[in-house]
């Protein structure tokens, strides 16, 4: 084991040996210099997420009922969550009409085959997306009925 325990001053690959709760010993894999450089360059190209006041994204700007380019069901988690957060920001800003129309458009673009059971395990994620959009649409409707638009 001593061969793979890094000596702290050595510029090694970061491979370390740890003891799990069960008592078993586990080797945490290292990272080669090439792998690191690829990650580093990827990070430095864009830098970290910088959030400043007014940095509300334009992701939703072009989404309309006619547009079929943004498919929430096909998006990765991070961009999908970003769209959800932008919708929530619209709701917070009391932009209920816009929020409702965007949520409706995003729901319509998903193209879910009729009869799809959204409760089964494989469709659970899809179910969550549908539920989120539906809930937001309804809440916007209630706010608009109550005259809550800013």
């Amino acid at each position, binding site marked *: 084991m001593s061969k793979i325990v890094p000596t702290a001053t050595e510029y*090694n690959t970061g491979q370390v040996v740890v003891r799990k709760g069960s008592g078993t010993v586990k080797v945490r894999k290292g990272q080669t210099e090439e792998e690191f450089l690829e*990650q580093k360059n990827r990070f430095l190209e864009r*830098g970290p997420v910088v959030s400043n006041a*007014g940095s509300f994204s334009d992701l939703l700007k072009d989404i309309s009922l006619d547009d079929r380019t943004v498919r929430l069901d096909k998006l990765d988690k991070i961009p999908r969550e970003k769209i959800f957060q932008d919708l929530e*920001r619209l709701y*917070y800003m009391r932009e209920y009409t816009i929020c409702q129309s965007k949520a409706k458009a995003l729901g319509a673009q998903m193209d879910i085959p009729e009869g799809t059971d959204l409760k089964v395990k494989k469709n659970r994620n899809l179910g969550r997306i549908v539920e989120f959009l539906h809930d937001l649409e309804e809440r916007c409707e209630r706010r608009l009925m109550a005259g809550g638009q800013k």
Partner: protein
Amino acid sequence: MYKADIVYSPMILAREFVRHENARMSDFSTSETDRPLILQIGANNVTDLLRMCEMVQPYVDGIGLNCGCPIKDQVREGIGAALMSKKDLVADMISAVKKKFGDKLTMEIKIRVHPDVNETLEFVKCAEDAGVDFITVHGRTKDTRSSVACDFEKIKLVKQHARVPIVANGDCRSLEDAYRIAKLTGCDGVMAVRGVLYNPGMFAGHVKTPWGAVERFWDLSTNYGLPFRLIQHHLSCMLDGQLLKELHIQLNEANSLAELLDFFDEKFILKRQGEEGFGEAIDVPYRESKVAGESHCSLSTEAPSIPVATVH
């Protein structure tokens, strides 16, 4: 806004950060007002730490190596409080960072005290010899429960022997506490963690979270895209002890951000950016006067400033 001199990021694991883009996107976001910013790092080897520093150095003012986190899962991985028994490794990590970055990157370590304080003094000397810029000392051992009071005598002893600035940490829940701890320990600054979580306005002298901070938090967190459960947790802490119990339960039971916002708009007057008086209220502005809860007061003392640090 609320007079914190330094802000810290949550602990970010170096191993994941240098290997996975999704971990970087989820764990590290910043803003131009987050300054001076110390990025708190959890690491168990020199390589991961150095690589992480290489990546984040342009975006932060300093890094803090966490040697105090007592969470078992982290300790088993050799991270956090596990480092309290590995002073040579910690010294190697510090000297590697300082050798590579020098004054371009401030290096702090956050430690806990040992049952035998002499061990802590030895640990601190080792870190100083390796080139650490300042040290934050939490006055509990890694096995002390948070319900047991912080040992400020040990922190005082560390301060008396140290050559670098020492920041005291533990049981700081108000500005008065900060001054008391500074006086008691002779430290160069005081860090608050839970205190600030429950009352972000504490360093400005507020005895409870001012409502204006709640309004600002809503505005910033929805602008930045903080995940719903984190927003809910922060609001729950900020309003702890200020709401009637049933309202606090309702706040915690919301299942979506829109539901939580409906609750706030229904029960309280929650102003938005641009509305008159936004971010200025102190007391909770209930919509129904009959449910108005506890009274509020805020300190308006013009006390001399001491350096204070806060974790967010």
